[in-house]
């Protein structure tokens, strides 16, 4: 296991280097002068000149990259142009709502998808199965923002059961906080649930057609025991893979969900930074998100090895 961790870590280093180069290039890909793009026409030339010097844009490219990397390695991701605060602090303030949203959405998606996926497979071609596969199709074809608006329309505007925007920290006010996160978490969770349902259904179907299932049935085990003890365990591996693959989608979905429900999370921060043309902030946040994404993929990889011994020893 230790060697697997080391090998995976080593493999991410060149990718990380390319990622930093890509993020660094972001500012330089801007057509025209990035400073002109960032600042309004009316801003004084001396301010622009100062900013250009601040960002080192007047020096050769390789030097800029080297300085930027040097600072990066010391944990300095630069400063936002808008509020002049370090990127890290900007992100630090926003990370909590995002993590809470992602956690809740994940929980909801598993709660919804597990029973539907299992029942769909166990009672193939039944009404339950047809409803389940239709649900999965809807979830996959429905963009996040439409789900969000439908939920707002039904539960916020028409029934007035839940707040439709704003954020209360559930760690401080549990009830109000959970209420503020309910609709966003359902929005994000349903899309994920659709994918998990599909995967779980097809991997359950595959597992159920194995010889050991016939054996288990032949020795007189009940249907429930066969499904739970023999099929489900083996069907879970592809689900973990898909969960890993869907992390990126989850992050993207969080961006949209936070935007619709006005949650002060990291996704909202990216959108705001792009709107404000705050390029250093965009650079920093995108880099942090990418690194977080790479590390969570790594974690999923390792988890995979933990679940399935065959992979660990390969």
């Amino acid at each position, binding site marked *: 296991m230790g060697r697997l961790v080391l090998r995976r870590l080593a493999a991410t280093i*060149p*990718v*990380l280097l*390319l*990622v930093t180069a*890509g*993020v660094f290039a*972001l*500012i330089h*890909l*801007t*057509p025209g002068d990035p400073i002109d793009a960032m600042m309004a026409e009316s801003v004084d030339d001396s301010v622009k000149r100062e900013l250009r010097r601040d960002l080192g844009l007047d020096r050769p490219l390789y030097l800029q990259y080297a300085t930027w990397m040097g600072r990066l390695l010391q944990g300095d991701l630069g400063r936002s142009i808008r509020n002049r605060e370090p990127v890290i602090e900007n992100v630090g303030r926003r990370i909590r709502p995002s993590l809470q949203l992602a956690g809740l959405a994940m929980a909801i998606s598993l709660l919804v998808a597990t029973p539907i996926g299992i029942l769909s497979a166990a009672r193939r071609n039944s009404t339950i199965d047809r409803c389940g596969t239709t649900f999965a*199709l809807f979830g*996959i*074809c*429905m*963009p*996040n*923002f*439409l*789900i969000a*608006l439908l939920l*707002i*329309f039904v539960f916020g*505007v028409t029934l007035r059961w839940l707040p439709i925007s704003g954020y209360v920290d559930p760690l401080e006010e549990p009830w109000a906080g959970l209420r503020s996160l309910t609709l966003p978490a359902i929005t*994000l969770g*349903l*899309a*994920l649930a*659709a*994918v998990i349902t*599909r*995967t779980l*259904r*097809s991997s359950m179907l595959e597992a159920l057609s194995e010889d050991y299932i016939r054996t288990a049935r032949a020795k007189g085990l009940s249907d429930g025991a066969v499904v739970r003890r023999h099929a489900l365990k083996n069907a879970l591996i*592809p689900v973990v893979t*898909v969960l890993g*693959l*869907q*992390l*990126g*989608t989850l*992050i*993207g*979905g969080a*961006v*949209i969900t936070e935007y*619709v429900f006005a949650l002060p999370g990291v996704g909202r921060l*990216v*959108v705001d930074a*792009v*709107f404000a*043309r705050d*390029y250093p902030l*965009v650079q920093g946040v*995108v880099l942090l*998100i*990418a690194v977080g*994404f*790479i590390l969570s993929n790594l974690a999923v990889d390792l988890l995979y090895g933990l679940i399935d011994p065959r992979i660990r020893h390969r």
Partner: protein
Amino acid sequence: MASSTPGSGIAEPAAAPLASPVPARPARARRWRTLRHAAGARLAPFGAAVLVIAGLAALLAPAVAPHDPLKQDLNHALAQPERAHLLGTDNVGRDVLSRVIWGTRVSLVAGLGSVCIAVLAGGLLGLLAGYAGGRVDGLVMRLMDAVLSFPPLVLALALGAVLGAGLTGVVIALGVVYTPTFARLMRGQVLSITAREYVDAARALGVPGWRIAWSHVLPNATAPIVVQASLSVAFAILAEASLSFLGLGVQPPSPSWGSMINAGRGYLQQAPWIVFGPGAALFVTVVGLNFVGDAIRDALDPRLRV
């Protein structure tokens, strides 16, 4: 179907399967059988009908749209659906149906354009990596890994920010996002095909490398790429709508489904039709594309049927 992606619409490319070893000839009969098979799938006719309607709407928008999509009429703002305005009017009195019809253009251009870029760029890179091997292979594939290290929507956002808002920026940004999927697919295909005997035979006959790539490897590598491309168009359309919804794609007043939905969300209570018109169009188009994509996949590679 592990490559499906919800919500934000940007596909997390799951490694698609390698080509099925379809017998190489006779090509025309095989193609015909494939088409017939695809058309025979249960939901494919519905999907195809949706696509034909969407295509016609996009092509004939000036002729079939009942009103000018940009013409404001403040006297008829937020009008309910009625005979003159089948889907109602929006907050400045523009006809929602006409805007939905014109929006089809944006969606189809974004979906097809970005996937074309991705297929071309990814296909070439994959061909290069698989064919050249060694260091070139390593470099190209690490580059693709780097692109895949960004959550797709975030990458599209960042690229869109740099390229500037507008349809062109969105198409290029999404093209870049989808490129690695096709590069990986193509590389896998090339690796498995170049190990076949007929490639050895061609080599032994002294056929130059580029010609082997063009006339032996490419034609045999297309099946999974076609499948992935047909499903990717759906995701690209969702992604364009998402970006435009965030205000970072196609800019108002140009009619794009995503930006229309965003503009209408403030009027959910008084005029839900502003959101539901383009929302339904988006949903039905994506469902149709998925049906067609699934049918193509089943026809080209029956082993993948879920």
